[in-house]
């Protein structure tokens, strides 16, 4: 089959064979994950190494992490369509694709994670409005719908589809109203990113997780939204850079990257200051009120105080400072270091807010709880990564994801 008509005009793509080989490798990984998923659905959650102390584990972390990393989508939408940073139009397509991948993955993981998948719809039909998880499920699903709508015009820009007047006009009209969807997405995201933070913050039986509230929202509610906005762009930039590395092409102009990085930097700095204040208040007021000192929470060899230092200083202040300084973000090594640290930082934050919450013993006579995921858990967590690679590869090959690609890589 000649696939030339499928490839956007004016750009070069690798050969079909090269591409097929790459897809075969990634699909193999994907199938491994699908097999694990089948085992879990068929045999039940005994296929995992979760237990009654670790009801939430690797998957919930993966959920929280991918949604934070996918936060670039709503934040770039916010900046582009609401604040009016038009420069970011050059990167927003990728942010939307990443968002789509992250949110669909999150939904899939949730469907694997529940003990009774066939009852999953109860969360909507029998919703408990007081539960943060209900809020998460609703906003997640709604925002996923929004992301799908945002993704559609990009798909319709595929040259072959674009030839059909119906699709062409649909695409055109959708572009016109995209700002509305972007605004809706931003609104939804503020809530569900926050409610994911609320998931841990409301657990007043878990001193490590519990935070003081503003009205019904614990501090973590705001910190999660803030951190997703701050670190999500890091991931968008990272994926751009990786794509550029693999395709050996420049795809987005530096100006767009630097602008995005700068905004991300300021978000990180402000977030990490807020996070520090939250940590200090928690360590000196909230926790002692429940009979805990800060070091009680970091008394295990795995979960030691180094984690807090890593999260706040190494993956917080350092990338933040790099990205807010012009010299820092324009130095490609420093930029890469900062965005990688940022991605690690937000993932680490989500990790401690899920796994460490479970690990810390609440009773003085209990030991720290330990957990090591089973291969089935790992495989199903790798599954979205493989799926994401496939979607990005396909999107890049057949869709004009990077508007500046043609300009930056003219074909002779």
């Amino acid at each position: 089959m000649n696939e030339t008509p499928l490839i956007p005009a004016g750009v070069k793509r690798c050969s079909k064979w090269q591409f097929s080989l790459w897809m075969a490798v990634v699909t193999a990984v994907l199938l491994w994950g699908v097999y694990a998923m089948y085992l879990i659905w068929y045999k039940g959650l005994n296929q995992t190494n979760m237990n009654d102390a670790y009801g939430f584990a690797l998957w919930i972390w993966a959920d929280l992490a991918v949604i934070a990393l996918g936060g670039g989508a709503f934040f770039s939408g916010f900046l582009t369509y609401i604040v009016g940073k038009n420069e970011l139009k050059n990167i927003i397509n990728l942010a939307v694709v990443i968002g789509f991948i992250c949110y669909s993955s999150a939904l899939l993981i949730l469907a694997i994670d529940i003990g009774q998948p066939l009852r999953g719809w109860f969360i909507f039909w029998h919703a408990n409005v007081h539960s943060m998880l209900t809020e998460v499920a609703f906003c997640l699903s709604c925002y996923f719908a929004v992301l799908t709508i945002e993704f559609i015009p990009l798909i319709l820009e595929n040259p072959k589809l674009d030839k059909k007047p119906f699709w062409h006009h649909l695409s055109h009209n959708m572009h016109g109203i995209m700002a509305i969807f972007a605004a809706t997405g931003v609104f939804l995201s503020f809530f569900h990113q926050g409610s994911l933070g609320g998931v841990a913050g409301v657990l007043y039986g878990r001193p490590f997780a519990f935070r003081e509230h503003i009205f019904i929202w614990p501090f973590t509610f705001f910190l999660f939204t803030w951190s997703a906005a701050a670190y999500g762009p890091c991931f968008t930039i990272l994926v751009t850079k990786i794509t550029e590395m693999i395709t050996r092409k420049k795809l987005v102009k530096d100006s767009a990257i630097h602008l995005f990085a700068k905004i991300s930097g300021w978000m990180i700095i402000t977030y990490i200051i807020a996070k520090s204040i939250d940590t200090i208040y928690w360590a000196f007021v909230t926790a002692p009120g429940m009979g805990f000192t800060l070091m009680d929470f970091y008394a295990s060899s795995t979960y030691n105080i180094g984690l807090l230092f890593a999260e706040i200083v190494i993956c917080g202040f350092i990338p933040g400072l790099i990205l807010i300084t012009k010299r820092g973000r324009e130095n490609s090594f420093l930029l890469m270091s900062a965005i990688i640290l940022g991605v690690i930082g937000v993932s680490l934050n989500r990790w401690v807010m899920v796994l460490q919450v479970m690990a810390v013993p609440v009773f003085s006579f209990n030991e720290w709880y330990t957990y090591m995921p089973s291969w089935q858990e790992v495989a199903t967590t790798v599954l979205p990564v493989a799926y994401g690679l496939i979607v990005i590869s396909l999107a890049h090959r057949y869709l004009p994801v990077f508007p500046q690609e043609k300009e930056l890589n003219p074909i002779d």
Partner: protein
Amino acid sequence: MKIDRRSFLTYTTALVLGGAAGSMLTPAPWKLTDDVSIWTQNWPWTPVPEDGEVTYKQSVCTLCPGGCGINVRLIDGRPVKIKGLEDHPVNKGSLCPMGISGLQYLYGPSRVTSPLKREGKRGEGKWKKVSWEEALGAVTKKLAELRASGRPQSVACITGSDQGTTPNLIGRFLTAYGSPNYIRSATAQDAIEQAIYLTQGKQGTPVFDIENADFVLSFGSGILDGWGSAGRMFNLYGSQKPAKKIIQVEPRLSDTAAKANQWLGINPGTEGALALGLAHVIIKESLYDRNFVENFAFGFDDWTDDNGKTHDGFAKMVKNFAPDKVSKITGIDKAEIVSLARAFARASKPIAINGRGHGAIPGSIDESLAVQSLNALVGNINKPGGISAIPDSNYAKWPEVNIDEIASKGMQQPRIDGAGSEQFPNTRFLLNRLPEIINSAKGESPVQALLVTDANPMYTLPDTAATKKAFDRIPFIVSFSPYMDETASHADYILPNHSYLERLQDVPTAAGISRQVISLAKPVVKPTYETKHVGDSFILIAKALGGFIENAFPWEDYEAFLKETLKDQWRKLKKKGIIEIKYDLPEPLAFTFNTVSTKFEFYPTARGSVKQKQNSALPTYTPVPIEGDVQRFKLVLIPYDSIRLAGGAIANAPFMTKTVDDTVLKKQVGLLEINPATAKGLGLKEGATALLTTPKGETTVKVHLYEGIKPGIIAMPRGLGHTAYSEFLADKGINVNTLTGPIEDPGSGLDMAWGIRAKLIRI
């Protein structure tokens, strides 16, 4: 309208889309979504218990000899729950975990559901289902052969009890058949009974009137770990007045020690020395009951026998047990010994009891005698709150057995186990000696056929390897066990008894209780499987053997036998489930004894043979030697009992095993308790794997660091390490009996081992 591939696709798409859109407007997708979730709520592989009418049936638990009353809840005749019977005189509604788990002994993969004949090698687990006719026929044939060859005495029968009609029926069978070798499993009760016999001259069931005592000094008795009737002991503990004191003397902080007012960690095996040390203080400080000692006791002071020979009295003997010396032996602080002696003597109703843990091992007679002497010193004999013995229940009445010549000859043969012989005149059964006797016999085994009921010697006897070797030498083994236990799995034939909830059985008074209570265990449910009451099996075998044996059993079945046995009491028992024979302490004659001296004998004159050997029958303390070279085996292993683990003939129900802590059993590996200081010296951390070696065997264990055990001592629970039963019990941890061996008390022949030397190496 031309249809080609492309338009076909388009039309199909349109059709599907239209169908999808249309279906959204029908109930189908929504109803199916709902129904699929309802299907998950009603998975056919998740059982739905049938509802019905609730009724209750009262009976008695016979899983152990405790004799606690139970109340069984039934739904349409199907038992669903067991609880304690509120107004039962033994347990007053309290029940141990085993009793509550009872329904798991009614059903489950461990049940033997029909008679079985061994197919493969012994213990291989290959069985053939056979009919009752075939199974009974095979046993009858073998027994007839042995009788025909003039060796009826080579048939031995091991039982769990010698009280009540079923054991008596079996005893009657053996008598008519011609074998004296009725062997009951021994417990601490044997040693205590013997000590009471030697001091008071009374043969009977010991009574510890803890109900009315106000100071309980326990020499290692696990009164809250399953000692005696567990239901009774728990009930007593729960309902006791706060003034009651419990002092627990034990090397390990057991559940009893944990709940005691005081725990004294003692060097294991030195309890007798402590008892004598306490006696020393009590006598030295003149705190003893003068009235009792001077008027109703013999051998307290030095005395002269008929030959004019002067013997040391008890008071003189205990002079050797000054607190200093006893402190060295026992490891208990001198001041503690003195204050304990004073507290014990000054209490208004003190009682001293012994029998380690559940009381699985009889222990040394000297120790039991020392404890009895302590009770005598405070005059708490035959008094409320004290120690006494009630005569064995004699409600069973049946015609005399007439025996033929073969039987008569057989009955005149000495018992294989040596009980009642000149060497052990005061002991009735010595199962612990059996393996050694069989193993050391030249030529063929003295036991040619072994019948086992209500016992599991292959598991419960110390030194499992020797027991297995002995059993391998017995050509014919029949088990009547309802469960595939270790002995049943080594049998040639299994003639399964009904489970305890399916069978009729009278239950006589359990040890310790100051009232004579006979209860009736009634079937609460019809037999589920092809099983037969063990009494019926024996009656059928007797009838098939014919002659005098048949004539000894004129009853149609066990129930008829029971009815006739109980005569006029049957109706009352059947109606009420319990008959209580009021046992009033003979108040004016409380201190009359059937001994030679008609007094309580601090100096037990009936201890004939011992007297000759030791020159004195006084209960002195000589360290009980334990096996193993001190240099090679630096540690001492003691078995311990737990209420959550059944170490006896009937093993744990899955529910009980489920309650076992992960510091006792982790996956399939048992944990050994060790003091952290000792562990440190061996380089062992919590949960570390180690090789445990004793002179009897070795095993891999994990260690659990526990401050509640004396340094240098290591402890493992009884009740784990089964090799038979089902996956819910088998191969979990180690049977501590594989690591220990029996030690014969020179006076009684009973097993008095309390531990064994051991070494532990990190691996």
